[in-house]
């Protein structure tokens, strides 16, 4: 299976510069549905799913490779090289914002711009650093996932099945969320919430935009500010949007901020 099939890659749009969208923990490429149309005219749009999410090849999931963000980083580099991308735009949400940082360090030629939505280099508080979660809270999360996997998966199935109001979404959601393997989600949560990439930030030489929601439980504003301070020359925009997914809850504001940066 090719790397493009492995990641359920979809390429669209008309433009020479590539714009690669990377989804975060809990979602798949569907989360970009309200953003993509605004850029399709001027960019070559690349959508993909991380291995273990959405329409990716679940059999390619290797617990060892994906135990840390390095495995995911290697995948992004591999698929971008496969597509011949150079000097593109990387748009990463949540944990994928950090994956974008790691990609920029390891393969700086791939992207000329990074758009980091809700980034967090470390979720757990550490001395003066505020990540938003105590160590105990993250361990509670991971323990809960260890003993409740059916709770989640059982709940997910009916969520996805019926969709009377917007049937056109049904297919996509069935295809993506239904395939969220709870076992993989659990491991992805571990890789995400135990990561610490603070030292990587200072070494990013790529133009970067940090998009921060004003109320975000997962990555609070002080974390976004930390990222902004750490990445040399980065731009910072605090959105009016609340929550962790401005690309879904406030697409227009998100698009505007991106366009202003680009």
């Amino acid at each position, binding site marked *: 299976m090719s790397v493009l099939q492995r990641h359920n890659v979809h390429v669209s749009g008309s433009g020479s510069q590539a714009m690669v969208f990377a989804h975060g923990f809990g979602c798949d490429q569907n989360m970009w549905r309200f953003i993509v149309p605004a850029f399709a005219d001027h960019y070559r749009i690349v959508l993909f799913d991380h291995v273990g999410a959405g329409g990716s090849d679940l059999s390619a999931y290797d617990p060892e490779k994906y135990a840390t963000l390095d495995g995911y980083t290697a995948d992004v580099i591999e698929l971008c090289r496969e597509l011949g991308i150079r000097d593109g735009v990387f748009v990463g949400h949540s944990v994928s914002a950090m994956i974008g940082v790691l990609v920029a360090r390891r393969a700086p030629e791939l992207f000329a711009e990074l758009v980091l939505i809700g980034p967090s280099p470390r979720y757990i508080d550490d001395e003066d650093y505020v990540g938003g979660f105590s160590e105990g809270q993250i361990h509670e999360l991971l323990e809960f996932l260890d003993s409740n*996997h059916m709770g989640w998966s059982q*709940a997910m199935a009916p969520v996805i099945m019926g969709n009377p109001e917007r049937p056109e*979404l049904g297919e996509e959601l069935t295809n993506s969320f239904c395939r969220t393997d709870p076992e993989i989600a659990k491991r992805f949560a571990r890789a995400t919430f135990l990561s610490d990439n603070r030292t990587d930030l200072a070494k990013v030489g790529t133009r970067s935009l940090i998009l921060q929601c004003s109320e975000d439980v997962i990555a609070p504003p002080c974390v976004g500010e930390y990222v902004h301070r750490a990445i040399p020359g980065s731009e910072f925009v605090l959105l009016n949007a609340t929550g962790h997914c401005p690309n*879904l809850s406030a697409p227009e504001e998100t698009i505007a901020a991106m366009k202003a940066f680009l």
Partner: protein
Amino acid sequence: MPQDVEDLKDLFENAPCGYISVEPAGRIIKANQTFAAWMGYEGNQLVGRRFQDLLSIAGKIYYETHFAPLLRMQGFFNEVALELLCANGSRLSVLVNAVERRDDAGRVRFIRITIFNASDRRRYEQQLLEARRAAEQASAELRELNLTLEARIEKAVQERMTAEDALRQAQKMEAVGQLTGGIAHDFNNLLAGITGSLELLRRRVAQGRLSELERYIVAAQGASKRAATLTHRLLAFSRRQALDPKPTDMNGLVAGMEDLIRRTMGPAVVVEVVAASGLWTTLVDANQLENALLNLCINARDAMPDGGKLMIETGNRWLDERTARDRDLPPGQYASLCVSDTGTGMPPEVIERAFDPFFTTKPIGKGTGLGLSMIYGFARQSGGQVRIYSELGRGTTMCLYLPRHFGEAEAAEAAEAARGIEAPRAEQGETVLVVDDEPTVRMLVTEVLEELGYRAIEAAAGPEGLRILQSNARIDLLITDVGLPGGMNGRQLAEAGQAVRPGLKVLFITGYAENAVISHGHLEPGMHMLTKPFAMDALASRIKRIITGG
């Protein structure tokens, strides 16, 4: 408040589920009485709080990363399992439905959330999950077992084969041990024959009776030759060989073993060999077959502690479809080798387990329980079968079937049995009955007796000797070997003789450890003992002393 409004309010406040309305960002606008009660708050205390903040940390993270995006994409979600943190710190398992309410412009006005108490259901789910985990683990273990089974069987078989190899050798050594006693006895007999002949030879030469020398030379040579044959057979038997099937004539093999078997069986067992003429050749490891035959014979002997009859019989068998199936063999031609005894026989439960390794009914130190299992293994490996026919209290027949080999048997070793001439001799005066199965010994004793002026009557076996004792013939002394063929040992003969001739004097001539047979080393009055080999002079003076009552 109008009645129907009151009704609706009651419906909302006291519904069996929690109702809340929240702003798009999650801030609670309205909560019903049921929900507030579950959470342990007064109704208004909840307004203004964010729904996410009422969730446990795992729920909060999943809500933000999974369910909030889902709600935004499809406009609702149903039956999401979450955990709420109550005012008193306890946790409440709930199932949550949510739906967006939009205004005409399509903007989200608020979100309506319905909360079901799911404590029971989650508990069942937990139990179900536990059960599923246990089942998964069990099937994983089974899978693992299946995967490694082949390798483990191979290893076990390998170990088993190594062990069996060692055991085969041990069995052989055990059989050799069984033989050694008997063979020592036989060697002493033969040595007695040789040294005695030589001594007589010397005397005759000294006396100048040169015409009689030939007899002694022939006797000594015969005994020497038999000793050599015995040695040869012993060596052949103890040699270790890998399984090496060769076309084999079982008649020749049995004939070659006959002598050895007779000696092993001891005098109390009559051995009869019935060799089928025109017996088919089989392809088999002759060494192993000899081993098997000997083991069958030893089992038969053990089943006949008071003696009996052992029959070894060969035959051709044509197994048709039915008989073959019955014996778990392909139909066709087989040569059979059967060993029958008149022993204890086996009850069905013993027959059933007789071929099991380590199954034995014999006391510790006597039985290994491996003889038959090895014979079985050998027979199956040779493309044949082994069967038990046994009647309790009457005897047992063990039959080996081996497939016919089309081709000539390699030169079978001819079994030879050079037997001396047996001629009763008589002189006048006192008469001595000499009973010994070894003609050379008999001859020497007779010679000594004649020299002493006694008359000698000879018998080669117990029953023959007893017949003479029961006759009117004059008998002053019975000289008998202890180990005798024909089902009656020397002691039994002596006792039977004393029964018809009270006061009968007896001189036992014994080979190896036969002392036990004669009253555990303690001799009754009138009985004497001389151990082989002995000098002619010692024999002469002993006989004279006994007869003259000295």
